């Protein structure tokens, strides 16, 4: 497609606006992390202010953030990986065989409001002596990730033509072989998208971790709330903690974002 110059200028302007709109509030938040509480309220000091590291010192001294980061990472990675393992084949089956009722069952997991799960789950898991372990966090996060992955992949598989599988069969692959060797590589873009979204949801999940985690398995969002004190709202520290929470996941996003559009190779095969 030949892109006209007008279109290029238009696109550039729009993208700049979009980026500013999405990024400015976060920039503001990160700036606030370097201000004292008094300065945060003072609008005159929005850009010109004396930066301080005291908020970050508070964050790292008070909270055991290294451990929380590890907890959040392990839980998010495991839940996402496990959900991919269970979800991608399921999505494929549901797409090829139009299993609408089953798809609905999977969707139910996402539909159920979290509150109705809290007490029953706590009851079951505490009787199984799993409360406070990472297992229960992974399971509860998988519960949220699985429908997301299944549905995104279903939409993806719906768009892939049947000829691919058929050509694989002609070449001597079994159905399962065709799935594994042809369809899965082609859906890398979809898996990357679904995987990233699932990871993000898991990372930021708060409700389940609040109730089901133990003091050694606490995750980051719960730790952030530690800064909302009875005796003050320590905005500086809160913003610093939020920044700390966001940085690891931004780094991960940085490295994986190119997989999001990896579907380009899929396009080449079809063309």
């Amino acid at each position, binding site marked *: 497609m030949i892109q006209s110059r007008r279109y290029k200028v238009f696109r550039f302007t729009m993208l700049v606006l979009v980026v500013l709109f999405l990024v400015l509030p976060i920039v503001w938040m990160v700036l606030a992390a370097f201000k004292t509480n008094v300065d945060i309220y003072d609008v005159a000091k929005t850009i010109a202010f004396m930066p301080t590291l005291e908020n970050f010192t508070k964050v790292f001294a008070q909270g055991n953030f290294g451990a929380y980061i590890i907890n959040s990472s392990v839980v998010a990675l495991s839940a996402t990986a496990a959900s991919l393992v269970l979800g991608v084949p*399921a999505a494929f089956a549901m797409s090829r065989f139009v299993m609408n009722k089953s798809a609905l069952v999977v969707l139910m997991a996402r539909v159920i409001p979290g509150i109705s799960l809290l007490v029953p789950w706590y009851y079951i898991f505490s009787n199984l002596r799993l409360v406070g372990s990472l297992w229960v966090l992974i399971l509860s996060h998988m519960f949220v990730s699985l429908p997301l992955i299944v549905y995104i992949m279903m939409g993806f598989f719906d768009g892939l033509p049947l000829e691919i599988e058929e050509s694989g069969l002609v070449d001597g692959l079994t159905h399962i072989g065709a799935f594994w060797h042809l369809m899965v590589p082609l859906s890398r873009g979809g898996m990357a998208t679904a995987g990233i979204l699932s990871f993000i949801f898991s990372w930021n999940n708060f409700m389940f971790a609040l109730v089901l985690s133990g003091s050694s398995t606490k995750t980051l969002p719960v730790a952030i709330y530690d800064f909302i004190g009875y005796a003050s709202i320590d905005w500086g520290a809160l913003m610093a903690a939020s920044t700390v929470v966001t940085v690891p996941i931004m780094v991960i996003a940085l490295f994986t974002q190119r997989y999001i559009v990896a579907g380009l190779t899929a396009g080449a095969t079809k063309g």
Partner: protein
Amino acid sequence: MTSAVTTRAAQRDALSHWANKHRRWLFALPAMTFIVCLIAFPVVWTAWLSLTDASGSVRAESTFVGLKNYGDILTDTHRFWPAVGRTISFTVVVLFFEMLFGLGIALLLWRPFRGEKWVRIAILMPLVATPVAVGMMWRLIFDPSIGPVNRLLVAVGIPAQPWLAGEFTALPTTMFMDIWQWTPMVTLILLAGLTSLSDEPQEAARVDGASGWQTLRWITLPMLRPTLIVALLLRGIDALKTFDILIAAKGKGGGSFNEVETLNLYAYGLSFDYNEYALSSTVLILFFVIIVTCIFLLTRKREESAS
């Protein structure tokens, strides 16, 4: 020795044959079993509670009251029906804008260009920020007396607005916050769908002399339909259940006049503030029914587009 090997090979073949024949359920069952196991008990428990008068403590004595709770809730025009109204209006508005902007941005990002890596990273940022912290951040930004937004408005001569503090401006402000945070998710899903589309039809249209708009409307969008519906479905369900930003913005009860109280917040308040577990379960079941109805209508569309 040979016979053992042949038997093993034969067994492997039989297994493979069996697996391929039953691949439909082999693929789908693990996921479904997992979901059903975790969901069964809570759903039954919630349904049961909604038929009792449990309050104060879940383990306390409670009596079976049949459908009385449903009657009470469905005739409650003070809290329940307004909450339903707010839930629906919130969802419809944010979905509309998120799909619109999401599609627009996805189209802009479709073809490669210089610096696209940075744009993609920028797009991920609102998504990645912890919702709870984001809610707090917006609360400060929109603060009527000391927040930057009002300061900016006043500096250009527009009167200061109450934003989150105003009885009628609170809900729209939270809609804005939601659109800011979740448009990127729609963008990502649609982008993934766009890049998986084959180029042929669009090339053909271009050769035939169709304009950009025409190609978009008649070729691209229809091909994108399955993905659009997925995005609509996933984002729609989440929007109906929005919780984090509303609580962070207005606290429990959705403000002194319940101005942002949606069904999810109402059920939460019934459960955690009033300890009215039976009523809370009733609201949850009704909420569930509403969501399922919406999904039903949408999946009908998916079936149509699959054919």
